[in-house]
């Protein structure tokens, strides 16, 4: 278009840029500086690996997030592909229910886990009735695992289904014309074609699990994941510098996970909260 356009475009994005710079970039820079201003100085940034307690929580957070990612991808792929490849009465309703908790906040998800596996939860009641014992795991790493899966399934299912719907049906037909059995079609054609979707959905899932706070907060403050450690450092120990350093590192890790997935997937990996 005309050559004065760049000016108009700059003017239009200016408000967002100003707000973003003043309330995100500047504070992040400040956070970075504060992180290095505590009694340990810049060494605080290394404490994630040098402090055994922090290292332990980093390891358990990463392990938990990786496990959640793997489990969610597996579950969502089975159900998502099933819903894409089959038409049956009630399918729309099923799909609606599966994607409905999309925007539930972490605290509410934590409460859902309590409803299922808490002291008065469904699983506890059921096992009590069956065996006399009461299975309660909501207030532990297992509860957090369940909560994060709960939280991630809707989003991952949507991503997998959107990608599966875009697959050219002729690819499958071609594989079948060459003699591939149904499982071979899935293994050789469908799953490889969905790889970018897996990468992007998995990255979002991982990043969200790494940084999630509400669910852990609802279930128990003693669960040893990094966001809880940061929160404890900040509120109970008033160690603002350490909290700043740890949260900066955490932010860096999650952002890097998404950026990495994006560079591999090639397409847009949409981050999500």
């Amino acid at each position, binding site marked *: 278009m005309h050559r004065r356009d760049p000016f108009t475009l700059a003017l239009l994005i200016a408000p967002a840029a100003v707000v973003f710079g003043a309330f995100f970039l500047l504070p992040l820079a400040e956070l970075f500086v504060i992180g290095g201003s505590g009694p340990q100085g810049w060494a605080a940034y290394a404490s994630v690996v040098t402090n055994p307690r922090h290292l332990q929580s980093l390891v358990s957070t990463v392990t938990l997030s990786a496990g959640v990612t793997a489990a969610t991808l597996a579950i969502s792929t089975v159900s998502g592909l099933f819903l894409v490849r089959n038409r049956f009465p009630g399918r729309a309703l099923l799909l609606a229910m599966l994607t409905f908790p999309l925007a539930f906040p972490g605290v509410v998800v934590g409460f859902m886990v309590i409803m299922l596996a808490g002291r008065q939860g469904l699983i506890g009641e059921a096992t009590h009735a069956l065996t006399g014992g009461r299975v309660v795991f909501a207030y532990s790493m297992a509860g957090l695992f369940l909560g994060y899966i709960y939280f991630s399934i809707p989003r991952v299912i949507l991503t997998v289904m959107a990608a599966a719907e875009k697959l050219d049906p002729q690819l499958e037909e071609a594989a079948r014309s060459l003699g591939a059995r149904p499982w071979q079609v899935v293994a050789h054609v469908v799953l490889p074609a969905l790889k970018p979707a897996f990468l992007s959905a998995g990255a979002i899932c991982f990043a969200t699990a790494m940084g999630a706070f509400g669910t852990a907060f609802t279930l128990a403050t003693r669960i040893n994941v990094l966001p809880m450690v940061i929160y404890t450092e900040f509120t109970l120990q008033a160690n603002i510098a350490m909290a700043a350093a740890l*949260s900066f590192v955490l932010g860096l890790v999650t952002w890097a996970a998404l950026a990495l997935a994006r560079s591999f997937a090639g397409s847009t990996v949409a981050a999500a909260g």
Partner: protein
Amino acid sequence: MRRYGPAFWAQLSFTLLVCALLVVPVVLSMAAGLTVNYFVGIRSGLTLRWVAEVWALYADTIRLSLGIAVACLACTLVLGVPAAYVLARAKGPVARAIEELLVMPVAVPGLATALALIVTYGGAGDFRRSWLFILVGHVLFTLPFMVRAVLAVMTSIDLKTLEEGAASLGASFVQRFFQVVVPNCASGILAGSLMVFTLSVGEFNLTWLLHTPLTKTLPVGLADSYASMRIEIGSAYTLVFFLMIIPSLILLQLLGRRGRR
């Protein structure tokens, strides 16, 4: 209709199980919020007592959350729609870098963003104590969703040619923007708005650190009730929360289905 094989039934069962995992606790919590005594069970009778108690205890958190959500929506519309337009129009590394930056608040954990805001602006007493402090956090967190929803629609239509068409008919930039660009992105703006509203009403990660005793939002109250109230009150409160976000979630689903067709 063709006959379904065993593989179909196996997959259907699995999917139903997953669905149950998601839906059963929602139903349980809704029931709990309406049951006289959850420990005894539904046979203790149904009541609205807990809902009334939630209202008495937490009405101002509900009002504040709604207010912040509306304000947040207004901010993301004003900031996000023009920004999405610029990102759709401008090509080149600078635009892509800005796009990458704008999405960062979603990738960076809310805890980190909240801490960053506190260490930077925590000293500004009046601002720190007002609900605007929370609003800033919500705008940062939700802006990417608005930008992405609008940008998705803008890149799917031939925006440039439509605009040239309007310009050839004599429309000025402002006329083109409001009479051609915005109406043709309406579905994206609506989807973005619903998402922003829903996320803002439920935002906890940032808000827990940003709130003060006088600026408690609904999720802050929820966490409080889960920790210190009986399960029926927590449930009734959750029920109120569901009632607030369900309409926009349903609209989002309808919108998504229409878009997929």
